[in-house]
């Protein structure tokens, strides 16, 4: 029998094997998903502003720009569902569109979560999936100037056959455009092509990663009127909309994961102090 050649390495607080961290994180996240603890969720003023602004569009039409990659859906997906619930409850018509080539597929996945019971009767009247618009910023400008430049929706239905589009000829006819932000480039493109020329006002639904970069642009008199951030923002929006969903179920797991990571940061730094600051 061969003798196992296990590498001898000094184990301390500053060099905990990353696999131990992953395993602990897996348990800390997994257990509350199976047995929710029910930690309280506080609604932040930022999310409340977003909610109130969205509700002010009651009876109007908004566009949702689904410009995210699949990884962003972990946070933006629950936000999108909550926004669609709010829109339905407040009689706001929604146009789903996007300059990311996945946009049509996302809309096709998330619209039925809220509108499946009225899909046959209200599609094209209360909600529509215009799908992916090619051309990046050029495509945005074209859509802002002339929304009918998109000749058909994601399913090939002609725009002229969709009642929701009847009075939407330019982006000026929209109450808001909500950008689902996965990176900082696309929100800036929307600001340049929709907000700067004065077509419409912008709201942002963003990942926690992008939110700090958006902060300078958020405010009542700035390019982004209000914004919602990350999974916690989605959970707060679910709470406000009265439709608890995926995000609220995930907040326990996220809170416990934060605590675990803070413990590791503290342990690592204690280890560093005892080693005289040497890494």
């Amino acid at each position, binding site marked *: 029998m*061969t003798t*196992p*050649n*296990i*590498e001898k*390495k000094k184990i301390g607080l500053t*060099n*905990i*094997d*990353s*696999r131990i961290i*992953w395993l602990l*994180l*897996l348990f800390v*996240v*997994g257990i509350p*998903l199976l047995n929710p603890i029910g930690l309280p969720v506080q609604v932040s003023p930022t999310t409340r502003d977003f909610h109130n602004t969205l509700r002010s569009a009651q009876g109007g039409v908004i566009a949702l720009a689904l410009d995210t990659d699949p990884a*962003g*859906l*972990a*946070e933006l*997906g629950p936000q999108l569902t909550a926004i669609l619930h709010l829109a339905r409850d407040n009689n706001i018509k929604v146009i789903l569109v996007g300059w990311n*080539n996945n946009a049509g597929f996302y809309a096709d996945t998330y619209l039925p979560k809220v509108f499946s019971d009225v899909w046959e009767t209200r599609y094209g009247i209360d909600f529509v999936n215009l799908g*992916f618009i*090619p051309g*990046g*910023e*050029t495509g945005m*400008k074209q859509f802002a100037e002339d929304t009918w430049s998109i*000749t058909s929706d994601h399913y090939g239905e002609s725009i002229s056959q969709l009642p929701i589009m009847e009075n939407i000829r330019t982006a000026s006819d929209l109450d808001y455009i909500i950008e689902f932000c996965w990176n900082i480039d696309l929100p*800036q*493109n929307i*600001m*340049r*092509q929709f*907000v*700067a*020329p004065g077509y419409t006002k912008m709201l942002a639904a963003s*990942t*926690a*990663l*992008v*939110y*700090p970069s958006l902060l*300078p*642009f958020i*405010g009542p*008199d*700035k*390019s982004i009127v209000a914004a919602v951030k*990350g*999974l*916690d923002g989605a959970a707060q929006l679910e709470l406000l909309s009265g439709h608890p969903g*995926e995000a609220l*179920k*995930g907040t326990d*797991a*996220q809170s416990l*994961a*934060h605590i675990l990571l803070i413990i590791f940061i503290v342990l690592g730094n204690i280890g560093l102090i005892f080693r005289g600051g040497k890494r």
Partner: protein
Amino acid sequence: MAIDTGVLVASALIMMIYSFLYRENIVFRITEGAFVGASVARIIVVNLDTLRKSVWVPGLQGEIIWYISVILGILYVMMLTEGSYKWLYRIPVSFVLGSGLGLALAGMIKVSLIDQIKATITIPLVGAPIGEILSNWTIILATATVTFVFYFTSPREGILKYITIIGRLFLMTYLGYQFAGTIMMRESVLISQLTIILKGQGIWLVPLAFILLAIGIYYDWKKGQLHWMN
């Protein structure tokens, strides 16, 4: 109870990808390859569909002007050639650069410069609730000091040295906030993936995954390849 094949396949693929957390292995490589292949195939289909909707269908209705964009697109391929026609790729590149810059510049000055300056110089520094006043003074201080961090014209001596130190502290605070956001986003991805596994039939596969992991660890230990990884 009906078996949900979609959830089972998704759960298995998620666990196969996460097997990388133990170490690089063939199961991870197969899943990675499948993901890359599926993504590329989807992009090709979406692009061909866009071409059909934007060029082919209007072309059949007599709007042949859209073919110009296809010709310009094809010229990009000249970049891969070495002959005397290689320069032709510069035509579509110049179109894209020119139109992109032209589109972006006008809005950029308003959104990123004028609006930002206006928003910074018009915030109330007195006569507002104390929390807001403190916040506004912090914004002014941070804007001024961070601007000096990127001021390279004169050496950082005297008062300038201390101003840049304060600016750097603000920058580090921002980077810390950004990094915390990155962690939160990765956590959210983990939560959403674990929800797929644990809330559906994927949970049946969890014991199997742990057994396979244990076998992998045992074989690594036997071969003397069980290393600490940092």
